[in-house]
């Protein structure tokens, strides 16, 4: 079963607006990652935030993590039409033999209109 659940399932915005996607999870994590998938392509890693971090930035991306609420958000600022894609959160377990085994959410479909 998928641990991460993204919200909303779909998001439609105009170019230049900000896009915020949320992810909730159920169990303890080592880190949480966000991936992007363009139509017909494989997933591409965007950003990783460790369980002891609260916020991380990478270019136009800002990720927050609240381990007490078991939730994360991905903010894309000043969106572009090229940001149109599906976005997935993935959680990595704390360790042991499951280390490296990511659990992906169902994804948020983002559409950015020019």
């Amino acid at each position, binding site marked *: 079963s998928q641990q991460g659940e993204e919200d909303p399932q779909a998001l439609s915005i105009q170019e230049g607006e900000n896009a915020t996607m949320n992810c909730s999870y159920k169990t303890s994590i080592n880190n949480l990652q966000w991936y992007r998938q363009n139509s017909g392509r*494989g*997933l*591409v890693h965007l950003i990783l935030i460790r369980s002891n971090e609260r916020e991380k930035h990478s270019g136009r991306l800002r990720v927050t993590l609240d381990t007490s609420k078991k939730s994360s958000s991905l903010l894309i600022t000043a969106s572009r039409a090229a940001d149109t894609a599906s976005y997935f959160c993935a959680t990595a377990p704390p360790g042991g033999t499951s280390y490296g085994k990511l659990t992906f959410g169902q994804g948020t479909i983002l559409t950015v209109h020019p």
Partner: protein
Amino acid sequence: DARVTQTPRHKVTEMGQEVTMRCQPILGHNTVFWYRQTMMQGLELLAYFRNRAPLDDSGMPKDRFSAEMPDATLATLKIQPSEPRDSAVYFCASDGGMIRQGTQYFGPGTRLLVL
């Protein structure tokens, strides 16, 4: 530019036929994952290997699916016999281990259609 490669990119076959999908992980990556993606189920982990040894294949239908790593540069996923419900996109991914904290690098996928 290191990347994961998968072959074939597309496969159309008839029910009952054997399907073999191949993956070449990024050189030096010691963990390889097989995923299946459908509209209904999303992205499902089928199996994964570390240092060529299978660690978890609980997501894989055992009666018809098999996954192997004959060597460090090749992972295979076989379906025999194939069924229409196996139609999906199959992704291979590899990761560079703890130094990369489990960041996975995905291949382009094999789009399988079983008629």
